[in-house]
């Protein structure tokens, strides 16, 4: 059985093919990298439209698979940015309708968790999901993923990107696998006075962002502010996860999402987990960011457990929460 997965929630148009031995037959990613500014849907969506057809052909070619051999089409219908989601949804609906294949709706956040569970081998973890559009601590209970804590305002990745952009060190946001703020923080020192906000189980970054920019206007050294900003932001999400670990009693910790590549965040989580006797594993770097493989993987699980959608009803859901998705396969897959 082969499943084709399509990802298009933010900056990456991904097409992947996966067989039921969980062998990745193809993993094509077309990433939009802005020359200036941030990820603007009105710029990314046309880019997706241009690369979509080629990406699907490239994936089939790389796998040596014909559409006839594909058993189901999985597509990320949310959460994410509307214009980009619509491109992926249109492509998936067209393929499903034209080739008469079942269409499987996949929640992007659930997919980040499933690919992390698969690749780390940790089956029942508490998950720190940090990305440009999401920051949440999630764990499974009674049939669904539950949100233990989350950001009350900006996602962590967004806060880092916005800070980098405002102080003129990005784009590009990532150079050789390192975020602009990480590069800028080298040689920096911790300065007092920036707010650290953890409200019970939730975090907040908008006050930190404002205070950091204000400190710079007041003459603080950029590398010190980069260092402190990053230190406070990462520490606060690790602390939220630490509380989640205590409350849920889980023994495994997994890190996933675009910000998962951060070496410092990995270091902090690893320390925290060892302090509580929990096992920590990050997702391999190459699967931290958005990709089609995670959509195909989750689509395969959902398909095996009977989840599918009529193409005409496969509308996008920008605000589709992770806790709205039944996860009946949790103990049986991957």
């Amino acid at each position, binding site marked *: 059985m082969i499943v084709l997965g399509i990802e298009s929630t933010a900056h990456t148009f991904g097409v992947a093919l996966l067989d039921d031995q969980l062998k990745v037959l193809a993993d094509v990613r077309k990433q939009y990298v802005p020359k200036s500014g941030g990820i603007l849907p009105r710029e990314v969506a046309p880019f997706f439209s241009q690369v979509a057809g080629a990406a699907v052909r490239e994936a089939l070619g790389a796998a040596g698979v014909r559409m006839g051999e594909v058993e189901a089409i999985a597509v990320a219908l949310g959460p994410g940015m509307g214009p980009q989601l619509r491109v992926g949804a249109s492509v998936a609906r067209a393929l499903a309708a034209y080739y008469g294949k079942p269409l499987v709706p996949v929640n992007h956040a659930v997919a980040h968790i499933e690919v992390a569970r698969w690749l780390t081998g940790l089956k029942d973890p508490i998950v720190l999901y940090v990305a440009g559009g999401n920051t949440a601590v999630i764990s499974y209970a*009674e049939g669904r993923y539950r949100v233990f804590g989350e950001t*009350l305002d900006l996602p962590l990745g967004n806060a880092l990107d916005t800070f980098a952009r405002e102080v003129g060190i990005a784009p590009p946001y990532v150079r050789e696998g390192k975020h602009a703020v990480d590069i800028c923080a080298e040689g920096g020192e911790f300065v007092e006075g920036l707010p650290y906000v*953890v409200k019970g189980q939730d975090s907040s970054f908008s006050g930190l962002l404002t205070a950091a920019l204000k400190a710079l206007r007041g003459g603080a050294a950029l590398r010190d502010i980069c260092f402190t900003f990053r230190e406070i932001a990462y520490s606060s999400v690790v602390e939220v996860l630490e509380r989640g670990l205590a409350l849920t009693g889980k023994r495994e910790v997994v890190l996933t999402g675009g910000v998962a590549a951060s070496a410092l965040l990995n270091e*902090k989580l690893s320390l925290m987990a060892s*302090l509580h006797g929990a096992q920590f594993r990050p997702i391999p770097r190459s699967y931290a960011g958005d990709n089609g493989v995670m959509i195909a993987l989750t689509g395969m699980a959902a398909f095996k457990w009977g989840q599918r959608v009529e193409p005409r009803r496969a509308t996008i859901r920008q605000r589709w929460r992770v806790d709205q998705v039944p996860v009946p396969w949790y103990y049986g897959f991957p």
Partner: protein
Amino acid sequence: MEELLAALESSVRAFPLMKRGAESEVRLGTFLGLPAIFKYRLPKPYMHPKLALSLARQRSVREARVMLKAREVGVPAPRLYALFPSMSLIVMEYIEGETLKEVAEKDAERAIELGRRAGTIVARLHEAGIAHGDPTTSNFIFSRGELRVIDFGLAEFTSDVEDFAVDVHLFRRAVESAHARIAHSMFSSFLEGYAEVRGAEWVAERAEEIRLRGRYVEERRTVWGRG
């Protein structure tokens, strides 16, 4: 003074470790002959030492002040015995019993009933201008027929409706994530208890707003209308 603190430190370290929480190390010992909890707020090893130390001190001092105030207004918080800010150490009354979390795992009916009492306690704190900051089911203890509230480590003096609503939101979040099966009944009972002390409607409404503010809630309204 430094010698005194060093002596205190070494005698406290000799007490048995009761619990290493997300926040602190809790030891059970005796203070002036009374059984007592010694709560060290540990600098978090995963934070920069400066950040970790300043958070630990700030939180210890704030915790002690809030506990005093809570007792003053009749909230069954632990009695404060002593505070050593430079060591981030609080000495307080030892409360023996089961956490509400443990009760919820084995006795749903009792947990739902105690949810009501938790609501009353949280409402009393709010009346006194205190937001608990972390009212999860691990932070209520059922002791000698009475529900007590502990761990004021994240508590704040506030008059902001938002902070109170966050408490209510956090209680709901805690029961939803750890006790999904009885979450609804426990939370309803919590709100009933809350309403016995002060108006619960507005705070519940605001808590709902906070939930909706979490990212990706489908019914969230924006300035452009629904969702």
